[in-house]
């Protein structure tokens, strides 16, 4: 027993570092997805049929592929086609998750914007706000509030899914766990301990989501 505790203690520093990388991967991919989703959502809601068509195809493809396939295409496929492409596994993972996430977030944004009362949009138009002002000051803030819970759920899901990046050797929690498991020959204790790390990361996030959900978003 004391032997096991000593083992846990010896694994801890390495796993804390790896947890930091998992968190970094999660937040970077989320930020990338959140920004990339803006033009995609704009295209999906545009008046031009070809813009809408492009956005729809992008969303369907990005959502329809397993994220592992996207990661393999970026990590193994791209360097093969473009020899000068030399991103490390972490950057490739961020890009891959961001690309897929942008499709999900674009749909969340759109649902939020559509859920804002039509009457409020009309009131802003009748007062003389331009379409952009109406989006920034009336539709946007309310869409954001409506979109927060699904965005939070996506973030928690993303945190867990980043474990897939271990397959392209991104130095995050799951990769370290696999290393420790094979070097220590103690898979069960290692993976139980790593589960604890994931829970410590994900529980506060889902808690935070719930809090934001209950809070009014003010201007």
């Amino acid at each position, binding site marked *: 027993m004391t032997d096991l505790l000593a083992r846990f203690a010896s694994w801890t520093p390495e796993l804390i570092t790896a947890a930091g990388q998992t968190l970094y991967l999660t937040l970077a991919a989320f930020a990338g997805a959140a920004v990339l989703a803006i033009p995609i959502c704009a295209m999906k809601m545009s008046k031009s049929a070809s813009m809408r068509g492009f956005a729809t195809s992008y969303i369907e493809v990005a959502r329809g592929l397993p994220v592992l396939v996207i990661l393999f295409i970026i990590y193994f496929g791209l360097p093969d086609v473009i020899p000068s492409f030399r991103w490390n596994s972490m950057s490739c993972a961020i890009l891959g998750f961001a690309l897929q996430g942008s499709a999900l977030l674009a749909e969340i944004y759109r649902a939020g914007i559509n859920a804002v009362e039509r009457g409020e949009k009309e009131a802003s138009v009748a007062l*003389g706000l331009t379409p952009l002002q109406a989006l920034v000051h009336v539709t946007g803030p309310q869409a954001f509030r409506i979109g927060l819970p699904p965005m939070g759920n996506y973030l928690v899901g993303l945190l867990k899914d980043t474990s897939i990046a271990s397959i392209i050797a991104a130095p995050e929690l799951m990769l370290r766990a696999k290393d420790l498991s094979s070097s220590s020959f103690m898979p069960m204790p290692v993976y139980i301990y790593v589960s604890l790390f994931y829970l410590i990361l994900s529980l506060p996030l889902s808690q935070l989501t719930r809090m934001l959900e209950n809070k009014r978003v003010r201007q």
Partner: protein
Amino acid sequence: MPILSVRGLQKSFGNFNVVRDVSFEVERGQKVAIIGPSGSGKTTVLRCINFLERPNGGVIEIDGERFGVRMTGGSERFESDASLAKKRADIGFVFQRFNLFSHLTALDNVALAPRLVRKMPREQALEIGRRMLARVGLSGKENNYPDALSGGQQQRVAIARVLAMQPKLILFDEPTSALDPELVGEVLAVMRDLANEGMTMLVVTHEIRFAAEVADRIIFMDGGQIVADGPPRQVLYDQPTDRMKQFLRSLSSDNAPTAGAPS
């Protein structure tokens, strides 16, 4: 020159002609009520005036200026969103369902458009907001969100929001018909004050008594057309058409005009 001139207005949805050849004018300071049975096209006429709905034909002029269409090089073009927005800012629109911004306090609801459209500094916009809320009797409710206000209070905030833009003309679309009966009076009282202060108002309403007392003219619409346009006494009492008599009978008794002539 009339402040609002509507000539030959046409609007159809699909092949259903909702508004057919509607023409009328509103002079500065005039109060005009539009009445008529449900589905006769009253709301659609109002919405066409500030281009919330694009007319299929006809001319809208505000203060002599053509609305929604631009003449460029001898040909007519639809006006850009930005240019339309600038003109809409001078026309108030009060909706049946208030349509307050639900994420903003009463004060921010009123101050938003002066800040964004009139480019007023924040403090000045808030000051105007407080003044307008006071004007509709809502001092002390500045920090309430819409869902913490009664229907009557929400509609008064909506009126304050329109007043803060110092409109040339205010369009009201059945401003009291979404309200519980006991809340109708407070909104009509505010509208009466506005009328007394000389505001130009075009009001779609089922409140016949209010129309008879406050309006300079009543327009009676039926089937997408104006069938009567004149002083209340004339339209309602002196020469009512059969359709008008039928319409007046269809209104609830407490709302219908009393047997005698209006005051």
